[in-house]
């Protein structure tokens, strides 16, 4: 899958679940593999780009999750 498209899917997954479910990176990878046939390595690389750009961030709530940065 195209990297930009994959990034968009990841972002939307996180965005849509806001307030309902927190995703751990592992949950995202499993979901992407199951629903889109994306390999873990691909998903990891895409998530890393999203994190490096600050589009997504890691949060800690008794464990690490993926979230959208809070608006200032």
């Amino acid at each position, binding site marked *: 899958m195209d990297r930009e498209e994959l990034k968009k899917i990841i972002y939307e997954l996180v965005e849509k679940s806001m307030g309902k479910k927190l995703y*751990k*990176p592992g949950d995202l990878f499993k979901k992407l593999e199951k629903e889109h046939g994306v390999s873990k390595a691909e998903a990891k690389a895409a998530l890393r780009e999203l994190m*490096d750009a600050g589009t997504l*961030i890691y949060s*800690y709530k008794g464990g690490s999750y993926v979230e959208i940065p809070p608006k200032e």
Partner: protein
Amino acid sequence: MPQKHPTPLIDELEKGAFPSFVKEIKRAAESSNVQDNNYAQDLLGQLELSYKEKKTHWKHGGIVGVRGYGSGVIGRYSDIPDQFPGVAHFHTIRVNQPGGFFYTTEALREICDIWDKYGSGLTNMHGSTGDIILLGTKTDNLEPVFAELSSRGWDLGGSGSAVRTPSCCVGPARCEWACYDTLELTYQITQRFQDELHRPMFPYKFKFKMAGCAVDCIASIARADMSIIGTWKGNIQIDQDEVRNYAKNGMDIQAEIVDMCPTGCMSWDGNELKINDEDCNRCMHCIAKMTKALRQGEEKGATILLGSKAPIVTGALMSWVIVPFIKLEPPYEELFDLVERIWEFWDEHGKNRERVGELIERMGFPVFLKETGIEPHPAMVKEPRRDPFFFWSEEDVEK
């Protein structure tokens, strides 16, 4: 000038013989090296209030970190920031310590200078996991501290659901009992798993601790998901003259050594110490008490144990044996391969916040061995099972 708070309660802890942490906070509050004394000054104020009210005044976590990393910064906020604005933000930065905790004064001063510029001037040398802990700064300073540190060769440590900063005992640097190079292996593991350390992707934390021998000065068996403990094969090497010297200098070899041997594999006739090495379980007692006379066997390596953790949630675990003996020499590929197989198993089955030891307990040790391709060995158990409820797989039964 930062506001000084009266601190009659914690002032009591400046008294007494043992070094005082309150004195240290006061030093940081008054130091001319520290650019912003408000952190330490307001920490004193808030701590005094905690002592008065018998409760903590720190809020739960929060989202802070440096860009791209999900690990290495612990967000901390005061729950009474109006009263103590200096600690409204008081985030911790974990800096990956060098192996064996060795430093040059030049390196330490470099870290102090950076921290005085951007933080509270307070540190832990070291935190429980092993990192250098830089204690207390605000969100806006995180990127600058990281830029200053990383441009000088320092990186952050682990936190959250990631590989935690691996750490080790003093090892071959200054100990005759190190059965493998704990410092080098720690360095290589840390480098190999940088991605897993900085970007939390696991169900929960994963700790490595490298102990050079069974004395376990790094507490690996109690505090690491993977405990790598040095051991040996072959006979304990005895210098009988030195044994006699210990006896001459007042050691009661029978009572202190022979009778305390857990396997009863030793005897002493007043002149010669005999060891039946076949029965020795390599506990290190005799070697540790007669450092000059006894040395470990010559074939060195390590035992790998898995699974320890503190009692949260369903009780404490100590690591148990999964690999009785492994040679540990660079490039350590056999070990790394094993680690990756274990993580795959954990990734596949682990629940949120479930440590690898708890997962194996839940799924069964045999299932773990089967899925990771590790052969069963009697060294893995204290005794075989007591119940008759065991599983067979399809290939074990006749069709």
